């Protein structure tokens, strides 16, 4: 499946069965619904992508395209900050993988959480560096043998959901790439949230880390699925309840945490603008008059 509706020459390929296909479908659903509800064109959306397999989600597969920025490895968040704070009216979505977002780009999560930057980040976690052919990532399970951990991974595995909650991300959802409709709902709710939203998606790599079987489990063989639905009575406004969900392990599906009480950076800046007005260059120059 090469090319896009727009560009027949585009030749990027995900491997057959890659979870990122489902995530792209989900993003398409979410953005279209978002646009229809608001009666806005697709070009009011910007997708800022990381580098890696997931970075190629900078396109939607079909239809009108959003603006896209395929930048440099690990820096999708500050690029998105630049776009959002330059144009607060735009819907800005980050798409990145676990290597891009949680390893080289890890330093950018905390400041955006502190600022409550009003964007939605969709993270495709396959627990491996796919595009460089199978090295270990922060979410690779400890002791796993990969091409860069020939004697087993010596580091513990990072729990990203726990990290997001600790850093103060104000919307945390967890999803699974094989359920694009459900995932679209989580993404759209993240876009609607005024603040920093992260939708962390388990998106398996069929070539280097195929976890489909583990996620689904196997009743016949008595293997419990890794993925599980968060019950309807979960109180997502409660940080301790959220921590409880995360500590149950596996891949929870649904909204884990949402805090609508904190204003986002653009809202706070709007409040500053109401009490401070800028001066012209001429006026400022005159403050230095001899």
């Amino acid at each position, binding site marked *: 499946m090469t090319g*896009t509706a*727009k*560009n027949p*020459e*585009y*030749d*990027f390929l995900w491997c057959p069965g890659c979870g990122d296909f489902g995530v792209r479908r989900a993003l398409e659903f979410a953005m279209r619904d978002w646009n229809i509800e608001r009666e806005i*064109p*697709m*070009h*009011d959306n*910007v997708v*800022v992508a990381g*580098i890696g397999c997931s970075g*190629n989600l*900078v*396109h939607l597969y079909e239809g*009108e*395209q*959003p*603006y*896209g*920025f*395929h*930048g*440099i490895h690990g*820096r999708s968040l*500050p*690029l*998105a*900050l*630049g*776009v*959002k*704070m*330059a*144009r607060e*009216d*735009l819907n800005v979505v980050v798409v990145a993988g676990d290597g891009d977002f949680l390893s080289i780009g890890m*330093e*950018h999560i*905390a*400041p955006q959480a502190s600022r409550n930057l009003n964007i939605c980040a969709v993270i495709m976690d396959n627990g491996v560096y796919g595009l460089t052919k199978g090295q270990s990532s922060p979410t690779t399970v400890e002791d796993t043998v990969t091409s860069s951990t020939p004697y087993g991974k010596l580091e513990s595995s990072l729990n990203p959901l726990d990290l997001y909650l600790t850093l103060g991300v104000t919307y945390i959802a967890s999803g699974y790439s094989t359920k694009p409709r459900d995932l679209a709902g989580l993404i759209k709710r993240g876009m609607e949230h005024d603040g920093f939203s992260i939708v962390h998606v388990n998106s398996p790599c069929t070539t280097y880390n195929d976890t489909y079987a583990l996620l689904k489990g196997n009743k016949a063989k008595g293997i419990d699925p890794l993925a599980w639905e968060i019950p309807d009575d979960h109180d997502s406004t409660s940080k301790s309840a959220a921590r409880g969900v995360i500590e149950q392990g596996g891949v929870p599906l649904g909204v884990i945490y949402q805090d609508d009480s904190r204003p986002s950076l653009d809202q706070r*800046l709007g409040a*500053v*603008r109401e009490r*401070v*007005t*800028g*001066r*012209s*260059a*001429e006026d*400022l*120059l005159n403050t*230095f*008059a*001899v």
Partner: protein
Amino acid sequence: MASRSEIIVRFAGEGGQGVVTAAEMLARAATGVGYHALTFATFPSQILGGPTWTQARVSRTPVESPGDAIDILVAFNDVAYHEHRTEVHDGGIILLDPSVTPLSDEHLRCVTVPFDELAKQTGESRAANMVVMGGLSRLINMPVHYFKDFVSQRFAGRDKVVEANHIALDLGLAHLAEEDPISDLGEPEKPDYEQVFIKGNDALSVGALHAGIEFYFGYPISPATPILVYMERNLVGEGKFAYQASSEIEAITGIIGAGFAGKKSMTATSGPGFTLMGEGIGLAWMAEIPCVIVDVQRGGPATGLPTKTEQSDLNAALSPAHGDSSIPVIAAGSVDECFLATVHAFNWAERYQGPVILLSEHSLAERAQNIAKPDLAAIPVESRNVYKGENGYLRYESQEISPFPVPGGAGAYIANGSEHDIYGDTTHLAKYHIQMTERRFGKLKLLEGTYESDNASASVAVIPWGGSKGSAREAFQQLRSAGVDIAWYYTMFLNPLPTALLDELRSKDLVIVPELNYQGQFASVLRSQGVKAEAITQYTGLPFRPTELGERIKARLAGAGQPQAVNA
């Protein structure tokens, strides 16, 4: 008592003793009544303590550098006295704190003033500076009311402070009433044009505002921090954003995001931060995003000399990123040019749709000077050509520069740091790498800068760059007065260099490049362009002294034609 056209006063002591503000106060008061003045400051990288000194050069005519030997040294402590006494010229004066014992064979005139004790008598212990000013008003024969007026203005509405400082001025003056003044500067000739008294970093900031900056994102680092502070305070209002980044990597990628979203954006940093920005600058070149990156140079490499001046980032500025690129570089050489070069940098970024590096340096950043107030109406501001068509636009189809689509409007495309095709989509095809590489380099032809020259017919020439301009210009004038036949060239536009300038330089037998680095970086660039260039270097963390530089140029000319080691 000899009358003279200028006087240099140096204040030396420890950080926290008011040394920094002293020179600025003297210069500000002097310009207020019509003199020309320029300050120089150098301090250690700490807030309290550590050897700090500043100086003010006050003149009846415009000055362009910190100057040569000192006329008056104000030494607040023993270390300062011993460190700086040798730089006072014969006939100069040293003002000493009573805690300092002058050398038994000191040949210079030493005058003791109990700065702190007199200040305490005013009821305002922080008025020691004003005691010094009062004493100076006697020694340089400048009426004390100049300083009093300055104090009244500066502390308007705070009557007690004004009164205490006025008393301090009188006490300092009275204490030295019997001392002979060093000179008579004579009546100032107040310029008949509007002036501002401004530091390089502030001039740069106001220049950015005139150029239409909308987005500033920066990380604190000496000596660029004042730009961040100025922007946070003044770049406010609808559609404006100025904010502190969590790192220089965040800063560069943030301004690229804003540039992509249609805004005029800038960050300012110094060497260490500039190095961190390298990959991002390459991204802006690759994705064709206008933005301005300011490097206020300090001594390097690594953490280097955070509070000293150097011009050693030229190589980095010309080649900040891996891969094939040629990033435009403009360097400011004076406080005026800190303003002007910033406007040019924005104009270039908007015109060719890419990143522009603006070089300043510590000595300019901290230099406070009276300059003619820039006539904003006469300094044109450019903005990018925005795409106004329908969807389906092929952003990169043209071999030439093409209109810039802005998110929120039609023309959606992928801005891409990977090599891309005419859609902006990632590609590995050779034909697109060739086409896009040529497209990116081809846009540089839109950037043609100006240059200045003087006595251009001479067969040897001097061409400084950046903040060495002032010292080199004064050295050049001294050489010309002494009958030396040498040409003067100067440009702010270091990449691309003006083609006509290169042609002229190539015709010279020898082109001397004074620059503050070990390697002779600009001379090396010129040699690679076929110019017979040789550097005169200095790497002390301090600017050139004009007379000393003139001597070195003269010595080199005397040896012209002889084999001479070229700085590596």
